[in-house]
């Protein structure tokens, strides 16, 4: 398994408090990996650590190269797109402006224009609202916008923080179908943080279960799904 | 065995600490009382100004340090107090003592009145509004319609009062002791206020305004009253200043006066009663000191003190944001900890040798 991203002994700190206690995580190239766990397990912190948004220690390798000392704004230039929890859309800017910002670091104008059309192809509703202020979009539409903005980077790795949060099940299903399509058609590797274990396991090929900052279970989704404790606590049966 | 170790260091430190503190206070009293007899008349008035600034800073500190309301315009209250004292004594023949007190009361009313709209304003906005007040003050004082009372651009001259009961003191010395007396009273009042329920309410409003409200603290009343009290202190200082200096004029109450007061509480340390003394010494003497540096460097001398002031301010905020008092507290804390751990080591050795012999 060729790892696009891997961590060794990843630790993260909010001020003086340590919240991640030495994690070893790997995201397979071209695959989808899920990070599961309850509220407060540290899943969001993992993504923040990878995006250099919190103080972190330990080894992080992307495409085989160590990426330890990067600033948050340089992570995007590596080809890692992070859709934060709460979507992080620029609510006062239009849909189109949000998308253009996603491509901020790119120099290839023509390709950017194409990618804009491709985003609209995946999410026709965004095309309808391209001139609207992002803050006026519904929750589902904002999530679509957030994902599209991340895709405008032409990322190698897409990190999503709780994409299903606050959305109606039908909308979530739509979005996850599109994510699968994007993964297969564009070969974008994904790391998805989800509280909804069922959903995540149906999309991802590999999963890690976090509890209070440490990994307790990891393995292929089928194995994780079959695990007794996971079934009882996180899948509800 | 271990209980003894915990108890002893505390008891060892206490009588020493108390003796030190009493000693420092005694020395302080000697200096304060003896000063006007060894210093020249000019220097004595300078120290009177230090005491006056200390009173003003006490007031501003109450508002900004303990209650968290930023005021960049306290010079306005200094002006009201100064002008009130001058007008009362010069135009209305009121004795200087009552004149200063009435000035203080007027300032309380003015401060309370300003505090009412200020309730709506948080940090930066209040700073902005008071900044505007400071900028507008000299112009307001020069308003032609009030010329008959304020003396217009020239201002008003006051005569320095002499010592009562034919005490053998010069005017400067008498004024100095008057200021010290007022300061002592106000310091005593402030210390008691801070340590009372009211003081705790003020601090609660500063740090957790919403929580304070839910606990039944009437934040609005406290905040406006604090504004009033703070203005009153500064007004009394202004009144005393008009006596010490001998005149009031619009341009002596400009923006830079208000800024000096802010510098004073920051240098001394916010929320520190004793820090205001350091702050007052700073704002009285540093401009003078900077003056003598600039004498060497050429004309436009009056410019440099303020440039140095500004640089010092920024450095202070960077290196010692808690001011003199805060830094002192940190140092004292560090010294005490080192004392305690070395006492522990001594006791450990004693215990060990004790074990061996028994």
């Amino acid at each position, binding site marked *: 398994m060729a790892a696009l991203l891997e961590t060794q002994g990843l630790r993260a700190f909010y001020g003086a408090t340590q919240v991640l206690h030495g994690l070893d995580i790997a995201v397979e190239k071209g695959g989808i990996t899920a990070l599961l766990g309850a509220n407060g397990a540290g899943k969001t912190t993992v993504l923040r650590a990878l995006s250099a948004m919190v103080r972190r220690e330990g080894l992080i390798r992307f495409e085989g190269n160590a990426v330890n000392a990067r600033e948050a*704004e340089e992570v995007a230039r590596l080809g890692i797109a992070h859709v934060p929890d709460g979507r992080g859309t620029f609510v006062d800017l239009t849909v189109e402006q949000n998308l253009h*910002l996603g491509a901020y670091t790119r120099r290839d104008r023509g390709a950017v224009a194409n990618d804009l059309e491709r985003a609209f192809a995946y999410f026709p509703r965004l095309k309808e609202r391209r001139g609207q202020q992002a803050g006026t979009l519904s929750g589902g539409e904002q999530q679509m916008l957030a994902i599209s903005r991340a895709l405008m*980077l032409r990322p190698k790795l897409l990190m999503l923080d709780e994409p299903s949060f606050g959305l109606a099940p039908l909308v979530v299903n739509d979005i996850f179908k599109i994510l699968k399509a994007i993964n297969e058609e564009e070969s974008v590797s994904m790391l998805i943080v989800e509280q909804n274990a069922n959903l995540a396991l149906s999309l991802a090929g590999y999963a890690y279960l976090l509890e209070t900052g440490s990994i307790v279970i990891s393995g292929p989704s089928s194995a994780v799904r079959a695990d007794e404790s996971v079934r009882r606590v996180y899948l509800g049966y | 065995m271990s209980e003894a170790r915990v108890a002893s260091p505390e008891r060892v430190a206490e009588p020493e600490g108390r003796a030190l503190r009493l000693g420092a206070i005694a020395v302080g009293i000697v200096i304060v009382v003896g000063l006007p007899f060894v210093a020249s008349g000019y220097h004595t008035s300078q120290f009177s100004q230090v005491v006056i600034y200390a009173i003003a800073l006490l007031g501003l500190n109450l508002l900004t340090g303990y209650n968290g309301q930023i005021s960049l315009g306290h010079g306005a209250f200094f002006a009201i107090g100064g002008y009130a004292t001058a007008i009362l004594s010069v135009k209305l023949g009121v004795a200087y003592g009552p004149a200063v007190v009435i000035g203080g009361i007027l300032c309380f009313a003015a401060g309370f009145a300003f505090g009412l709209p200020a309730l709506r304003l948080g940090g930066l906005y209040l700073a902005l509004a008071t900044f505007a007040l400071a*900028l507008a003050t000299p112009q*307001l004082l020069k308003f032609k319609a009030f010329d008959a009372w304020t003396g217009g651009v020239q201002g008003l001259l006051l005569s320095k009062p002499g010592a009562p009961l034919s005490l053998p003191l010069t005017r400067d010395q008498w004024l100095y002791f008057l200021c010290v007396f007022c300061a002592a009273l106000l310091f005593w009042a402030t210390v008691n206020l801070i340590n009372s329920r009211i003081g705790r309410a003020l601090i609660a409003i500063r740090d957790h305004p*919403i929580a304070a409200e839910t606990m039944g603290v009437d934040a609005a009343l406290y905040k406006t009253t604090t504004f009033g009290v703070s203005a009153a202190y500064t007004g009394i200082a202004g009144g005393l200043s008009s006596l010490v200096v001998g005149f009031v004029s619009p341009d002596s109450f400009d923006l830079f006066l208000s800024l000096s007061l802010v510098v004073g509480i920051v240098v001394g340390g916010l929320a520190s009663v004793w820090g205001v003394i350091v702050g007052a010494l700073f704002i009285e003497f540093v401009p003078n000191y900077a003056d003598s540096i600039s004498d060497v460097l050429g004309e436009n001398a009056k410019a440099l003190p303020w440039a140095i002031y500004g640089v010092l301010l*920024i450095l202070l905020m960077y290196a010692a944001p808690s001011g003199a008092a805060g830094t002192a507290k940190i140092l004292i804390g560090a010294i005490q900890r080192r004392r305690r751990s070395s006492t522990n080591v001594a006791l450990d050795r004693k215990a060990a040798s004790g074990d061996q012999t028994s």
Partner: protein
Amino acid sequence: MIGLVHQILSGLAIGSIYACVALAVVMIYQATHLVNFAQGEMAMFSTYIAWALIQAGAPYWAAFFLTLVFSFLMGMAIERWLIRRFEKAPVLAVVIVFIGMLVIFNSLAGWLFSYTIKSFESPFPEKFALGNGFMSPHELGSIVVTLGVLALVYAFFGFTPLGLAMRAAAQNPVSARLVGVKVNHMLAIGWGLAAAIGAVAGMMAAPIVYLDPNMMGGILLYGFAGALLGGIDNPWGAALGGFIVGVLENIAGAYLVGEEIKLSVALAIIVGVLVAKPSGLFGRVLVTRV
């Protein structure tokens, strides 16, 4: 009637200067939630630089543009080496730093250029070729220059990628970083722009109020009043507010309170807006989450 029209027109002229100051103040406020109390003194200092260049023989517009460049770099440097160090400091500490800056610029100008009042030439002719209209050429010129500046800034923020990135950085620095925007860079550029716009205000004001280190105090106050009136988080509202304040000041000065205490009008506007409608005429009402 003619008097009133004249008051309004010259109110707009002085208002154009306030509009520039208001715009500069709001630009920094939007990006950092800080009020730059030293904005006036920075503008004054820039104007002295222009004066020095003209004294050295430079033609007016060359001096004008060189001063803009200087001010831009000065603003960037201040953000990069001073303000950024106080990113996480409490409000009062930052206010003190601004006051320190105010004081340093003021005294530096006094030391380097002396306190004697100097005259600063206007690039516009003394009189109109076609006889005296309702305003002087300088007044008209100020309005035109200001509108030009406002148009350029509007175009920059509305239509360029850099402008878009700066808006994003100001609104949501976290998300901006995630798309690769160097937020600190954007802050520095914002400060540079604000300083340059302030310099325009200073250079337009100097022919009217004469060049001296304390010239911008009152103007800054009116700039604040305009910014608050228009809405401190809305740059265009703030600029409009500046124009309105200019007109109000003139009318109040001529018909209501008299010329000498016009500053109290600014004070009244500031306190009035803050108490009655803190978000100003065109700003957004902010709801604080408890």
